């Protein structure tokens, strides 16, 4: 019994520690968590989306997130491998009514109005660099009027 107590307990504890600590899904692409804030004309962008496209290399990953109340957050599991990225931001004019006529018996629904100017979106040239092991925090200021 003494033998049992002395040997089995540490083995069991070691096995438990292994189970708890290791054996996760891993992170083969070395993805990094990315977060930040987006403001439009000085006020937080209440709803929209942000997209990071690989810049200057093959489009092997694509990441992005929904912007809620001016903030966005991409967790590590779905994050960006280190490198340069082109940023695109889109925000439809908020429409919380339930659409009725858009379900087929019309020649297609009309798009929502895009609030973000094209230079932050389809014609974006905003480049950010995601760095391994650092706090990858990127804030963006959108100005709707060019000055």
């Amino acid at each position, binding site marked *: 019994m003494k033998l*049992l*107590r002395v040997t*089995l*307990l540490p083995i*069991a504890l070691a*096995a*438990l520690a292994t*189970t708890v600590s290791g054996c996760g*899904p891993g992170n*083969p*692409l070395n993805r990094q968590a990315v977060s930040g804030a987006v403001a439009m004309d000085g006020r937080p962008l209440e*709803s*929209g*989306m942000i*997209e990071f*496209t*690989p*810049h200057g290399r*093959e*489009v*092997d*990953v*694509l*990441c*992005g*997130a*929904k912007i*809620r109340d001016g903030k966005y957050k*991409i*967790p590590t599991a*779905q994050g960006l491998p280190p490198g340069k990225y*082109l940023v*695109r931001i*889109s*925000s*439809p004019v*908020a*429409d*919380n*009514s*339930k*659409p*009725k006529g*858009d*379900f*087929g*018996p*019309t*020649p*297609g*629904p009309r*798009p*929502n*109005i*895009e609030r*973000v100017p*094209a230079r932050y*979106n*389809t*014609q974006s040239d905003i480049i950010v660099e995601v760095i391994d092991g650092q706090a990858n925090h990127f804030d963006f200021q959108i100005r709707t009027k060019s000055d």
Partner: protein
Amino acid sequence: MAKQTTSTSRSGLNRTERKHYSAFTLVELLVVIAIIGILIALLLPAVQAAREAARRAQCANNLKQISLAIHNYHGTYNKLPPGSYSSVWGSWQAIILPYVEQAAMGEQYCFDSMFVMTGPSKDESSFWGDKNLPITTRHFAVFTCPSDKPTFLCPPGWWGTAQITKHNYMVNYGNTGYTNASSGPEQTYGDPASGGTVLSGVPFMMSGGWEKSTPPGWKTQYFSFRDITDGTSNTLMLAESIQTVGDDFRGLTWWGRVAGFSTYFPPNTSQPDVLQAESLCDRTADGTNPPCIGFTTARPMAVAARGRHPGGVQTAMCDSSVHFITNDINLALWRALSTSQGGESVQADY
């Protein structure tokens, strides 16, 4: 522990004499129980993983059955089913019912008033039509992934008070969006010069485009296996969807817009899906459902493949082979797999 003997015992010992037996102390018992507890704790995740593996296998079998059903449909009509007749008049899921051993349901489904825009029979062939509700309020096991929880679109809504069911599989709508019912899928998504995509053939389309020619009218576009010049082994047929909760439309695969997926997005992306309006898909904002956003000219409608299995989604190719695709798949490859006429060279070991 000791046992006190009685005077009448056969051993003939004295009333007060104690005999010691070898036995466990309380501490030793607790240690043994603790060890057993730890061992069970070690075993439980393994058991859960095995159960998930079994559910995944069943899900893969569903994909196999559906892809074989689509093959049988092709054998009958020499063409693939459309992704859907416009958005509301029946998706591939309703069309192939007779080929998944649901002949009675399939024959009952009403396609008669498709593309009828006015009059009393206007809604008859829609998924909320009276004749179709007995079918669209049912959960079909073959369209349900066992790792997901069967849900329905929470009534009431513009479709009435019926509990219209959600399911788990979508057909391949290609690598772009499918915003505009007037012209079929988008020809590009994003800027092809910087990470966007160009449509290069799809096996399925949300068809029933509104033709602007004179006289204007609806047209349905079909494809067949001979159109898949990239090869059926290199072209996706099906992938998974998730059944969202509440009045989120994602998973409502009776409806054309979410009956297919776009590979512009990687599987299980953190990016929002794009539908007509946020009000169709992201009303809770509590993270229960994946994010979603309304479409704009800069961001056409497209829905990502999403599944409940850890690490990726299950897919079926047009040759009916079933593959598990990880979330980390090279996006260029994932997009190439969705095109039917892209001419990409695809390595077999994805």
